[in-house]
C-alpha cells in the first residue's frame, strides 16, 4: 500500500470534475442558510454526518471488494433526490475516466462497461482506491473529506469567504472526520456477511430539498 497514492487520489487537483460541484453549498448560500465561516462549519458538520458518512461507507465497501452493482443500488436508495442521483453518476463517470487513466485495472474496466452512464461517485472512488492499491480506511477518509472540502471551497467562491477561514473549518472538523471514517469502515466490514442493508442511511432533508431547488434554477455557478 502506497501512502503517496492516497495523496494523488485525495488531491483536489485530481482531474475528476469535483470542483464544478458545491455539495449543496450554493443552494444553502442562496437561501441565506450559509452566510459565513460559522454557518459554513455547521453546514459541513451536518453534511459530514449524513451524506459524508453514507459516501464514506460506500467507498470503503467498494474498496474492500463488495459487489459494485449492489453498492450502486444502495446508493440510489440513499439518494432520494433525482438531481443528486444524476450529479453523483456524472461525477462517478468523470472519476472513472481519470482513475482508469491513472491506475489501469480490469476491475475498473468492467464496472465502466456495466455503468455506461456512470456509477455513483463514492462507489467509483472506492474502486479507484482499490486499483491504486489503497484500502477501505483510505477510501473512507478520502470520501468523508471530499464531502466537506468541496462545499468549503465552493463557499469561498460564493461568499468571497477568507480561504483561511474555510480551511480552519475543515481543520476543526478533523476529529469528527476521524469518527465518521471509523464508523464507515466498520459498516463496510459488515457488508460481506450481512449485505448492503447494514450501510448507514443518514439523510439531510435540506440537502435533498436544496438540490431540487438548485436544479430548477436557470442560472447557477455550480452543477450541484
Amino acid at each position, binding site marked *: 500500500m502506497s501512502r503517496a497514492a492516497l495523496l494523488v487520489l485525495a488531491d483536489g487537483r485530481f482531474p475528476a470534475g469535483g470542483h464544478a460541484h458545491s455539495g449543496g453549498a450554493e443552494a444553502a448560500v442562496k437561501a441565506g442558510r450559509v452566510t459565513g465561516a460559522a454557518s459554513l462549519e455547521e453546514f459541513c458538520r451536518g453534511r459530514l454526518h*449524513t451524506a459524508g458518512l453514507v459516501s464514506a461507507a460506500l467507498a470503503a465497501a467498494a474498496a474492500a471488494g463488495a459487489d459494485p452493482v449492489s453498492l450502486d443500488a444502495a446508493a440510489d436508495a440513499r439518494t432520494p433526490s433525482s438531481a443528486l442521483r444524476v450529479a453523483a453518476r456524472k461525477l462517478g463517470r468523470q472519476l472513472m475516466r481519470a482513475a482508469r487513466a491513472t491506475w489501469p485495472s480490469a476491475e475498473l474496466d468492467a464496472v465502466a462497461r456495466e455503468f455506461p452512464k456512470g456509477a455513483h461517485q463514492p462507489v467509483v472512488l472506492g474502486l479507484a482506491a482499490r486499483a491504486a492499491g489503497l484500502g477501505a480506511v483510505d477510501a473512507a477518509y478520502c470520501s468523508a473529506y471530499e464531502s466537506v472540502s468541496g462545499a468549503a471551497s465552493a463557499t469561498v467562491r460564493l461568499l468571497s469567504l477568507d480561504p483561511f477561514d474555510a480551511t480552519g473549518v475543515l481543520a476543526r472538523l478533523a476529529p469528527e472526520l476521524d469518527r465518521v471514517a471509523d464508523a464507515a469502515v466498520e459498516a463496510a466490514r459488515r457488508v460481506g456477511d450481512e449485505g448492503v442493508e447494514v450501510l448507514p442511511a443518514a439523510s439531510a432533508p435540506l440537502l435533498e430539498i436544496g438540490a*431540487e431547488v438548485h436544479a430548477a434554477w436557470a442560472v447557477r455557478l455550480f452543477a450541484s
Partner: protein
Amino acid sequence: MTVPGVRATARIGARADGRGGTALPVLEGEGPIALRRTRGSGPGAHVVLVGAMSGPLGGDHFTVVADVAEGARLRVGSAAATIALPGQTKDEARYDVRLCVADGGELQWLPEQLISAHGSDLYVGTQVDLGANARLVLREEQVLGRVGEEPGRLTSRLTVRIAGRTVLDQELACGLGAPGGWDGPAVLAGHRAVGQLVVVRPEFADEPAVARVVGETAAVTPLAGPAVLVTAVAPDALRLRRVLDEALVTLEGSPAERTA
C-alpha cells in the same frame, strides 16, 4: 434499577372479501395500542390506531404489523399524535412498523404526527415490503418538541422495498445527542417539523413523476423505482401537514384514488 418497558404488538390483516370489498380477518391490538375499524367511503377497510396510554416511554418497544393481501385495500390512520416521552429508565424506546402489501393490494398509511418530547429517546423503524404491482401512500411526520420545548432524541429509519428491491432507505437523527449539525443549515436549519410522503404506484414505471419543488422547503422527487418521495421541513406541524397535503393532491390522479 432496571424497570422493564412495555412490549406490545398490534396486527392488522386485510383480505379481499370476494365481493369487491376488504375484510379484516386480523385486527389485534395489544397493551397500549388499540385498533378500531371505522366506517369510511370507498371499497377499502379503514382502521384507526388508538393509543390507550401515552408513550412510547423509555424502554418500551411497540410494534405494529399490517399485512395487505392481493386485491385488498386498507387505510390506516391514528386518533391522535404519538408522543415519545422519557421513561423511568434511560433506555431507548423503540417503535417498529412493518408493512407488507401483496401484488395488487393497496395501503394508505396516514398516521398523525410523532412528537419527540424533551428527555425522550426513541428509535422508529419503518419497513415496507411491496409486491411489484402494489400501491402505497405513506406519510411520516416528526415534530421536534411540544410547543416551546427542546426535543428529545429521535432517530427514524424508513425503508421501502418493491419486489425485493430497496428503492428508499433513509435515516434521520435529530435532537439532543444526535450527530452534530442536525439542526444546522444542511439538515433542519431550525425547522421543528419534518415529514415524508412516499407514493408507490405501478404506473410510475412507465411514466415517472417529474421532480419539482414546493416552495423553498419541500420537494417532490421520483425515486429509482416506481415511486415518488415528498420531503418537507416546516416551522411547525400545521404548516408541514399543509405542504404534504398539497403535494399529495397534485400526485393523486383522481378523487376516487383518494378515498381507497
